[in-house]
């Protein structure tokens, strides 16, 4: 942070009028009025990347969705066929249902756990900083590595989770964490909570800090109880943060892939296939790119709608 100081010094030495330093044309040094070409030059790399790696692929995706495109052969246009056949695709429809269920449960559980951890991390007591770091660390680990770790730990023979449960006397034998659809879903959700709740805690803590301390003091002077302060100050103050986290949790869960691919691989019996997993399988296992592209377009439209609604809501709140 030495920069501002050195600059102040250079201001101090400035005793001669500007003009004597430079020839007149230099006057238009105000960066904003510099030739627009310079500005374009600065954003050219951005424009190239956005155009080539984002806009063009978007176009290709839409085109793909109207073709029959086996991965290794050339595409032939087939109109709306990919879209009209989607409702009959049991795997895709099942994936949508499953992804929605997974999203709903995950969002609720994440918030429930996050509130407990925020209460601890926000405490003035000693050690809360350490606790906060402990809860956050799993977030830093990659999802694929974390999922592999979980997969090792739930193993029937060597997994440590079974051993812990048996050690405290909760179970007598191996649980079979991935054996039934219900248990597999539970196992993935426990992994996701462990891995992602730290992020929610951090964002909620920042949200709490933005609530002015005077509000709480005033309420205390007025004799408000802890519960009343929570209800009338904390919850309203956190509303934007909560809305944001809800959207992030929903969009993130709708796009879940790594944890299912690694832990359950969609099983048992395709009971835990998410939309992105179905899309991946169709494109790179069944090599039906056109049909997979149609699924992708549906997913894309759904996510854009959610994002637009979010923007609207946030904008309304600001105005």
């Amino acid at each position, binding site marked *: 942070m030495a920069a501002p100081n050195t600059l102040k010094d250079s201001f101090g030495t400035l005793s001669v009028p500007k003009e004597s330093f430079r020839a007149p044309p230099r006057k238009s040094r105000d960066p904003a009025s510099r030739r627009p070409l310079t500005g374009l030059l600065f954003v050219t790399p951005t424009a190239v990347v956005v155009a080539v790696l984002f806009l063009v692929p978007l176009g290709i995706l839409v085109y793909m969705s109207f073709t029959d495109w086996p991965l290794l052969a050339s595409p032939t246009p087939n109109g709306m066929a990919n879209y009209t056949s989607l409702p009959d695709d049991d795997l895709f429809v099942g994936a949508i249902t499953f992804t929605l269920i997974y999203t709903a449960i995950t969002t609720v559980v994440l918030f429930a756990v996050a509130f407990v*951890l925020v209460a601890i991390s926000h405490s003035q007591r000693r050690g809360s900083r350490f606790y906060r770091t402990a809860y956050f660390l799993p977030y830093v680990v990659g999802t*694929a590595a974390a999922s592999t*770790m979980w997969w090792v730990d739930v*193993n029937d023979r060597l997994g440590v989770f079974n051993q812990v449960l048996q050690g405290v006397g909760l179970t007598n034998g191996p649980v079979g964490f991935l054996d039934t659809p219900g248990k597999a879903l539970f196992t993935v959700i426990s992994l996701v909570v462990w891995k992602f709740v730290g992020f929610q805690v951090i964002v909620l803590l920042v949200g709490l800090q933005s609530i002015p301390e005077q509000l709480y003091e005033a309420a205390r002077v007025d004799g408000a109880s802890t519960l009343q302060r929570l209800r009338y100050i904390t919850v309203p103050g956190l509303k934007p943060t909560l809305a944001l986290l809800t959207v992030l949790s929903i969009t993130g869960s709708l796009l879940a892939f790594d944890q299912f691919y690694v832990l359950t691989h969609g099983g048992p019996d395709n009971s835990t296939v998410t939309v992105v997993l179905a899309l991946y399988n169709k494109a790179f296992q069944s090599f039906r790119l056109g049909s997979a592209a149609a699924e992708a377009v549906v997913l894309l439209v759904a996510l854009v709608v959610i994002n637009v609604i979010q923007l609207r809501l946030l904008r309304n709140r600001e105005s």
Partner: protein
Amino acid sequence: MRKTVAFHAVSAALAIAFLFPLLWALLNSLKTKSEANQQPPSWFPHSLSIANYRSLAGFDQGIGTYLVNSILVSGLTVLGSVVVCVLGGYGFARFTFHGKSVLFGATLAILMVPYATILLPLYILLSRLGLQNTLIGLALVLVMFQLPFGIFLMRNSFEAVPRELEEAALVDGCSSFGAWRRVCLRIVLPGVVTVALFSFLTSWNEYLAPLIFLNDGRKYTLPVMLVNIRYSSYNIIDFGALQAGMVVAMVPCLVLYLLLQRFYVSGLVAGALRG
């Protein structure tokens, strides 16, 4: 007093639960081969050993290849994101030009599009460009995904630099570029570190993109290779070595987080509040 004890009991129990899987992988990776694959597992290593790390060298191409691949991809992604975002951020913050808001909007729109959906056409596009199954192609795609966050952050950082500071440097005889480098870049350095940090972490941990783009086993990155161990071995899986591999994959992330915590949290918040 009793309340404090209860608070610490609950908090510490939860902290142990959160740290346990990480510590367990570390502990297991340091056991001897037979102990790491012993059933039921032992709690603490009876004797320490690096045998599990040694046998990582024997996985397919050997851990070194995957490590180098991961470092290359992450390095290229960091370099690309920082260059593009610093230049672009400055351009958006300080200049007016035709199509500025359209380009900025298009960049932020990357966030709106679920990233898994766009990997499909990118696979086709990269094949046509001869970049499919290359680390550079993968890095380019990862740079693209960093743009909305990076451009937004760098634009805001540059906007926060008072123009007077830059002008003063010009008056003091700096060249246009010199003023930019000495004044602006120094002030926005925290933003640059944040962009670099997040580019590194996302590219280091990315799984789906390399899974789709790389089909040559010699080019796999660390996460792809890790998950492959879980799937490709039809015989008995070496759990100790697998856990050693996970430690190798997560240590850089943990170290960077602990070192750069300040940038990490400010980046998370900036990223989360970008809406």
